[in-house]
């Protein structure tokens, strides 16, 4: 502006004022426009976002856990269902006197100090309207005691909940697993608020774990309008929950239960397949834990008893135990021999063993002259030593794989160990990775001899054994199925029917001729069973002691693979009895009863009843007795403390 010489006059002053007023007015209009623009931006452009935020302020969703889907068997019989129970929760915002309320609840519900500590900790972490669990599975009398005192217990919420129930108990333990509250890691992984909702359980093992997403369902919500301080204004229309889907299994739960009971006090497994479709009708591993007690939360002492048991009740032996198949793979070996040109009528003389260089490989007996069928029926090692040596194991191994040995099946299971079908390429590879186990990289003739009778490097699981039996029985490439019921028979395997008939003939003789399992014929007119026994060595045979006596843990395992009826087979099964000392002695009788059950339940139950009388009660009775024993032991342990 002008300065210095010129005087600042009233005229200048008035001009300046007008100019400045214009500037001030302009600034005011500018700020006004800015405010209107901002208002428009918030209310129009950002409207959707803020509306959402306002709604999430206003409405809170109290998660209502969905009911878990049922697991049923192939005929619709329930395997895992929900039973309603009573539970008590706390609503943190409605609590008035935390200490007073907890003292009353502790007295009414007989809560332990640990319980109260946990509740206090969870209350401190809880925000708003999310409930905190006080107790679940509350007996009706205690539930009623809390309910009548509700007026003096603001914030206490008695609820009806659901707990998982497995009618067959231990018989389905390994198959379905159990449920439990989600762990911190599981919540961390999924970040789903449903997981920390009181009373919500997720699958922890077995099918409950692998079918979790189908069984879970979608949570509903009780929608409530809350003030900023968490006060309930009103309840809005609830969002209904959707129960989890019912999952039908291929399992026949009656058969499953029978097989579990039939195993009795033994440690072992039974697998029954539909040998046309591959449906798994029974998948039993015993001894087993009772999933009902696991789902309520298991005590520490009970857990220790189970984990220290030498019969390993926590291990699913069908999928996670590997055994040398022993002689049960001889039918498979025979098929491989036929494929590579061995004439079934060719005879081999068995003098009680086979000499390879300066080593003598023993047979179980002196079988004289045997052809292929007879070698299967009598389980003659010499024949398979000689023929295996002639053909070479690299030509037998592909057949083993085609029949399911060493195969990992596409099943909804938590884990499966699939064992080894060895050949020269495998041995060389393993030699490079594990020199302690494998002494030399090249496949030797004695490796062939051992593998030919199902010993040595060859190890399989009981499910593979059953699949092998089923594939031989039907000649079809069955794949075991656990969920749903198979409708169509599996496609045929590329194995000539004449070959299969020869092997089936041998397996018929095992049971119905003068074979190794002659004592286990089906007690049914017109229905015959074919099979093959096997004995798996637990340790290397030393000085003639053949694992038939001595300490239990060194005794041989008994295996049996079978199918029935012998003509037009329908069912295939494998039975493994750990330390049962022999297939014909321990495993075949179990298989006989299990297959009998499929054709004549009454007769099977009759023989089971006789056995259970010897063992001291049914499986359920024995499980209950054992649970009582464990509790008594736990009580005795904690009493002095």
């Amino acid at each position: 502006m002008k300065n210095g010489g010129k005087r600042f006059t009233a005229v200048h002053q008035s001009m300046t004022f007008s100019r400045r007023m214009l500037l001030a007015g302009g600034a005011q209009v500018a700020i006004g426009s800015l405010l209107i623009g901002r208002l428009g931006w918030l209310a129009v452009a950002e409207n959707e976002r803020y509306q959402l935020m306002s709604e999430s302020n206003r409405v809170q969703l109290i998660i209502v856990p969905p009911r878990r889907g049922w697991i049923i068997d192939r005929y619709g019989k329930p395997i895992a269902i929900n039973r309603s129970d009573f539970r008590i929760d706390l609503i943190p915002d409605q609590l008035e006197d935390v200490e007073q309320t907890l003292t009353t609840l502790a007295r009414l519900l007989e809560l332990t100090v640990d319980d109260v500590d946990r509740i206090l900790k969870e209350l401190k972490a809880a925000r708003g309207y999310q409930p905190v669990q006080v107790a679940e599975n509350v007996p009706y009398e205690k539930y009623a005691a809390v309910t009548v005192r509700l007026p003096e217990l603001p914030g206490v919420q008695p609820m009806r909940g659901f707990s998982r129930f497995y009618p067959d108990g231990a018989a389905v333990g390994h198959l379905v697993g159990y449920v439990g509250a989600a762990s911190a890691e599981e919540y961390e992984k999924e970040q789903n608020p449903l997981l920390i909702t009181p009373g919500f359980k997720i699958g922890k093992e077995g099918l409950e774990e692998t079918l979790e997403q189908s069984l879970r369902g979608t949570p509903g919500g009780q929608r409530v309008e809350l003030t900023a301080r968490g006060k309930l204004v009103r309840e809005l229309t609830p969002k209904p929950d959707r129960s989890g889907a019912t999952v039908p299994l291929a399992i026949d739960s009656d058969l499953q239960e029978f097989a579990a009971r039939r195993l009795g006090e033994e440690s072992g497994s039974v697998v029954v397949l539909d040998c046309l479709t591959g449906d798994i009708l029974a998948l039993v591993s015993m001894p087993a834990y009772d999933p009902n007690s696991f789902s309520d939360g298991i005590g520490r002492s009970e857990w220790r008893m189970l984990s220290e048991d030498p019969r390993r009740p926590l291990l699913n032996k069908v999928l996670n135990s590997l055994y040398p198949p022993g002689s049960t793979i001889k039918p498979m070996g025979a098929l491989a021999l036929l494929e590579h040109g061995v004439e079934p009528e060719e005879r081999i003389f068995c003098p009680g063993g086979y000499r390879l260089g300066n080593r003598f490989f023993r047979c179980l007996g002196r079988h004289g002259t045997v052809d292929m069928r007879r070698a299967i029926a009598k389980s003659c090692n010499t024949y398979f030593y000689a023929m295996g040596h002639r053909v070479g194991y690299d030509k037998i191994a592909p057949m083993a794989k085609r029949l399911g040995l060493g195969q990992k099946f596409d099943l909804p299971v938590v884990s499966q160990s699939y064992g080894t079908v060895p050949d020269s390429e495998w041995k060389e590879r393993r030699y490079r990775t594990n020199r302690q186990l494998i002494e030399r990289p090249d496949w030797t003739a004695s490796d062939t001899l051992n593998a030919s009778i199902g010993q040595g490097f060859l190890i399989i699981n009981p499910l593979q054994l059953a699949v092998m039996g089923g594939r031989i029985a039907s000649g079809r490439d069955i794949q075991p199925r656990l969920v749903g019921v198979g409708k169509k028979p599996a496609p045929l395997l590329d194995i000539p029917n004449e070959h299969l008939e020869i092997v089936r003939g041998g397996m018929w003789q095992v049971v119905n001729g003068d074979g190794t399992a002659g004592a286990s014929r089906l007690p049914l007119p017109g229905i015959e069973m074919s099979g093959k026994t096997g004995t798996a060595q637990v340790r290397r045979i030393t000085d003639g002691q053949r694992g038939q006596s001595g300490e239990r843990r060194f005794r041989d395992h008994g295996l049996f693979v079978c199918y029935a009826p012998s003509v037009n087979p329908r069912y295939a099964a494998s039975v493994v009895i750990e330390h049962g000392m022999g297939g014909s002695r321990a495993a075949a009788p179990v298989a006989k009863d299990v297959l009998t059950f499929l054709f004549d339940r009454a007769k099977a139950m009759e023989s089971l009843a006789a056995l259970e009388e010897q063992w001291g009660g049914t499986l359920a009775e024995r499980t209950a007795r054992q649970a009582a024993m464990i509790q008594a032991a736990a009580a005795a342990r904690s009493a002095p403390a």
Partner: protein
Amino acid sequence: MISSAIIPQPLAKLPWRLIFLVAGIAAVGILTLYSAAGGSMRPWALRQGTTILFFLCVAVAMSWIRESTIKSLSFPVYALILVLLILVEMLGFVTKGAQRWLDIGFIRLQPSEFMKPAIVLVLARFFELLPAGDIRKWRAIWPAALLIGVPAGLILVQPDLGTCTMVVLGGLTVMFVAGVPMRLFVGGATALAIAGPIAFSMMHDYQRKRVFTFLDPESDPLGAGYHISQSKIAIGSGGIFGKGFLNGSQSHLDYLPEGHTDFAFAAMVEEWGLLGGLLVILAFGAVIRWGMMVSARSKSRFAQLAAAGLSATIFFYVSINLMMVMGLAPVVGIPLPLVSFGGSAVMTVMLCLGLLMALERQQRTTSKLA
């Protein structure tokens, strides 16, 4: 102005357009308070209505005060309020607590409120007395700075940052229109722009956090940013037409804090939408424009400066509150006059309007005489 034979002259000569605008804004405010109380005249709406009515009457009565009276009272009143401010400060010192008011029996007198119009009047008077040639001289600036600085300092230590800001801005506006050299304002603004970052770099962590919270309230939605976040949610969720009268969930469920006082605008927009907000802003704009026109039409320098300053005071009231509510300014605790519950803002604005009406009446009468 309504000119009709039936209506008596004194009534017809009142600035009715202004009174209707004020009444309209007040009506919106009272309805908002009625809704904020959950659909009840108590505890806020009725009291607010009475207060507004009373002070509107005071304002209308003030319109008969002559400009010369206002002029001659400017310095004494300013001095009196300054004394009261010091008294409040001493009282606070004695009772060992922050104190902003003097309790004189029937009313709690908050001297800093009166300072808002008083600073405008005293500066207008000062610049009127200043010879025209001196406006660019140092002697034009230091007394004005002192007149603003002393009360501003006293209010700041109360502490009341909001009122202090208003007093300073009101005073600066008078200086600006009076013609104090532009370079002072430009320089001052530049200095502030430079000092800001430097001050920020010297701040403590907790102070910086406050700045960040203002810049991005969502970063701390449950802490210091809660007010701004919830206010923006209330305004944004209203949309164009609002959620409807008595249906604002943010204010009714207490998510919006201070929904009846500082954040009344947010509560109103939530229910009335963009349209309601626009209407209120435009109504205030019309009131301020009326005041600016009074200033522009004034013949005397005092009336020019005083009218501009008083309009600016109302403008700062409204704009600072709206900026704060919409997340454009930090939360400083300035209510929206006539809408927010509280008597002091109503009183101040009505005092300003009363003085403006007096100046306007003077224009008309002088122009008639001339």
